[in-house]
């Protein structure tokens, strides 16, 4: 598939006189820089303050040239900061988040791929309705589903387990992954599937040998989407996991709500950044595939 989103062969600003070309490019870069400052501001502020001493922050506020730089907040965030009842920093919760996000991402992506494959290449009467129905799940507000989920988890004996969270995120994710995968797979030429059927391949063999090898772009999209979504969710984590089994974002929710205890802004800043690292990394490395896959999958 052509790398349509990444290259552009024609540059409309490269016409006319050289002076005009230089002027328009300069304007473009100036604007880009301005916007970049706006987008980087929050993360920049957090990063800056995560290296500052607490009294320094207290004296001069968050927007100030630091007097001294220290790694102490980071050390504390990693090892001794008291969070959700434990004073071991954010490490224990990291593991929870990974144990939750990785399986839920994999399972929902796997189902999404299969569903998308069926809904685009093995259509049957009513399959469009099934698709529409599954996609509706995208729109349910989470607050509304909390109590029904409690019943389901209770009856399934999954309350306060990682598996309960995995179940929730998988079911919730199905809507998105199915939507993305279906919209991606409809772009695969029908002829390919027809050729494979004539070649004697059946449902599974076509999936494994033809469709899966073509899926990396959309797999990347769904994995990124699901992983960041699951990683960043706090509501389900708060309600359906307990104590030291909470995911990291749920543990960190304390930072945003007023608590009746002393605030360690610098440690919070460090913890905040540490918590954001996995999704950030994923975007950093998968970003360009994400944009590309998204446009092949999401918008149709």
């Amino acid at each position, binding site marked *: 598939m052509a790398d349509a989103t990444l290259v552009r062969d024609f540059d409309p600003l490269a016409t006319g006189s050289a002076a005009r070309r230089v002027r328009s490019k300069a304007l473009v870069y100036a604007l880009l820089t301005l*916007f970049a400052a706006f987008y980087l501001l929050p993360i920049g502020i957090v990063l800056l303050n995560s290296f500052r001493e607490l009294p320094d922050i207290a004296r001069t506020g968050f927007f100030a040239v630091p007097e001294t730089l220290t790694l102490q907040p980071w050390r504390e965030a990693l090892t001794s900061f008291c969070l959700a009842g434990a004073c071991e920093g954010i490490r224990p919760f990291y593991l929870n988040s990974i144990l939750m996000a990785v399986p839920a991402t994999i399972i929902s992506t796997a189902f999404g791929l299969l569903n998308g494959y069926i809904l685009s290449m093995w259509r049957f009467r009513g399959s469009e309705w099934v698709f529409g129905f599954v996609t509706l799940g995208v729109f349910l507000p989470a607050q509304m589903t909390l109590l029904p989920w409690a019943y389901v988890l209770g009856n399934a004996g999954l309350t306060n387990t990682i598996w309960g969270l995995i179940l929730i995120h998988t079911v919730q994710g199905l809507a998105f992954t199915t939507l993305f995968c279906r919209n991606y797979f409809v772009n695969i030429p029908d002829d390919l599937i027809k050729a494979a059927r004539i070649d004697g391949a059946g449902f599974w063999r076509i999936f494994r040998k033809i469709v899966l090898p073509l899926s990396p772009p959309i797999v990347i999209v769904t994995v990124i989407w699901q992983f960041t979504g699951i990683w960043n969710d706090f509501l389900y984590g708060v309600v359906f996991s307990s104590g030291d089994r909470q995911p990291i974002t749920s543990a960190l929710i304390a930072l945003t709500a007023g608590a009746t205890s002393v605030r360690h802004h610098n440690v919070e800043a460090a913890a905040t950044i540490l918590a954001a690292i996995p999704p950030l990394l994923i975007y950093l490395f998968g970003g360009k595939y994400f944009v590309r896959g998204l446009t092949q999958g999401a918008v149709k």
Partner: protein
Amino acid sequence: MTLAFDDRSERRLLWRNRLATWTPRLVLLPTLIASVVYVLVFTLWTFWISLSNSTLLPDLSYGGIKHYVALWNHARWHVAYTNLFLFGALYVTGSLVLGTVLAILIDQRIRAEALWRTIYLYPLAISFVVTGTAWRWILEPTTGIQQMLRNLGWESATFDWIIDRDMAIYCVVLAGMWQASGFAMALILAGLRSVDQDLVKAAQIDGASMARIYRKVLLPAIRPIFLAVLVILLQFAIKTFDLVAALTGGGPGLATNVPAIYVYDLMFQRGQIGQGAAAAIMILLALAVVLVPYALYTIWRQRREAAHG
């Protein structure tokens, strides 16, 4: 006429054929069941609860529409529902406009495009549970931009929207745009790239300025993408929760309350599950107002495209 092939192998083929037609449906079944439970049962349950006597805990006895009456008599709900439309409109148009501007800038064959794109897109990767703090720091007059400007010597600088009940909602919009405009940018950019480049060439030869080319030719050509982004953003807007919770907690006063916060507060903090459910149903209604026309439009467009080949 006798069959040219022996009966047994013919029948075996038939069976295999039949299995093949049913495999897809069987594989789809788990998802379908999950969706029926998740979408249908959960919604119906909530709807029933909204008509029940539930307060502290769910209670399935029928109680009439009292929760809806109470809901609409509640001043805070009015604030929340009004905010939903104000915030929704500003957030969606703001993100679209900002995303469009960014997409157009990035579309100019710039260097290190991936870098710029990542900068604008990364907020999507981070939860507001995490960045809410930073935004508070920035917007808070005593710690943020206002203070910085004053420290720099501009004594009368004022930027205190977040503590101004009339302006606080715009801070929420601003932070929301910060998070979502990258997403809009990515999709619009890809849309721009999918437009036939010959159109730009043709318009240039036609003597149109770049502004005119985008306004008259390129942006209209990707209208379907705008619509898709619009719908995605709108459902983000309607479900907005942690953005507000982290940034203003619904304050100052009740100024930035939104329905999702209201639902959560009533259902869980106040123990008025029935009224919370009624509010949730109102959210779904708002969603339907957005989605039904979109679905109809999509179907109509598909029909039309099919008709024209």
